[in-house]
């Protein structure tokens, strides 16, 4: 870790070391309990907290969820956990706190060389357009993968929503085709 504030200490090297150590510790203080952050999380606006502290703050102010430091809008889903190297499996002394949110990993975007009919490169998406029957096939046949957002990362509520929605639409499409055939 490189600290920009590190400056050559005064004459007493021991004293300055202790002082610097204290300074280093303070860099990682939770903004709520002012202790070194445990189960550290960082908000999108860059402020560091213990997860139990931030959780309690968000519970206290359910209608007005803002960062305790800069008052930017924050939410439980949008904090990032910090995993330092020395992290051990410490049990959180405060109970009744849900676990820290998971870290979100999105896969790097696949680099598609030919920006057209992207079959084969993992860029194929099924979709059903709403429109006149024959044209609907065009929308599902000619896909432009980079115009769609990447699928939600694993283990998030978004993924569940996505799978639910795609199942729903498949059933709707099947029902629609049957209706067309019968009519």
């Amino acid at each position, binding site marked *: 870790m490189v600290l920009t504030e590190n400056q050559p200490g005064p004459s007493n090297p021991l004293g300055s070391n202790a002082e610097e150590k204290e300074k280093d510790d303070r860099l990682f203080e939770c903004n*709520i*309990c*002012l202790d070194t952050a445990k189960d550290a999380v960082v908000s999108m606006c860059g402020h560091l907290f213990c997860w139990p*502290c931030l959780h309690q*703050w968000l519970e206290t102010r359910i209608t007005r969820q*803002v*960062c305790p*430091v800069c008052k930017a809008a924050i939410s439980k889903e949008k904090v990032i956990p910090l995993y330092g190297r020395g992290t051990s499996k410490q049990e959180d002394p405060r109970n009744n706190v849900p676990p820290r949110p998971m870290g979100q990993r999105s896969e790097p975007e696949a680099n598609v060389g030919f920006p057209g009919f992207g079959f084969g490169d993992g860029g194929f998406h099924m979709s059903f357009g709403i429109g006149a029957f024959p044209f609907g096939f065009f929308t599902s046949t000619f896909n432009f993968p980079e115009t769609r957002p990447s699928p939600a990362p694993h283990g998030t509520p978004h993924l569940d929503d996505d799978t639910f929605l795609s199942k729903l639409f498949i059933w709707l499409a099947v029902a629609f085709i049957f209706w067309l055939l019968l009519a």
Partner: protein
Amino acid sequence: MATNIAAQRIKREFKEVIKSEEVAQCSIKVELVNDSCVELKGEIAGPPDTPYEGGNFVLEIKIPETYPFNPPKVRFTTKIWHPNISSVTGAICLDILKDQWAAAMTLRTVLLSLQALLSAAEPDDPQDAVVAKQYKEHPEMFRQTAKHWTSAYAGGPCKMPELDEKIRRLTDMGVDEHNARVALSSYDWDLERATEQIFS
């Protein structure tokens, strides 16, 4: 458990505030009233170029069990003439002590905010309607009155013989000095109306 967080945080803040440069400049001060970290005594110096300059204002600070998730309860124990502070109870109207509180704020930032409030009153969001009205309608009268209160209660340097004389006229009639001051201040130092109000 919550009390524990509150007490621990107060101890940490206490260390921080003692080391801060504002304390070195004697502009703010915090003291423990007892060892429980539930009640504290704060002090702020009246900011320069205000009617409060030279005064020293004492605050009562009560730390709730849910601190720092809820704001500390603060009121002035030194009597003060200010639109956002009750001249009777010392209650303060300041957003950060209510809904705008944030958990990262500390005793130090609260005291500095109060000092800023003394420099910049918000007469449109008053705590003391009488003071706020005077502040808006007779700004010079307000300044005189605030200066006078600073000298009477906060050890301010400015003596104002003219105002003191009016108070003495009332105290000679057996009126309590503070009541006389309140009545005169509320009636823009009109001796007749103040007398009328006191004896009605």
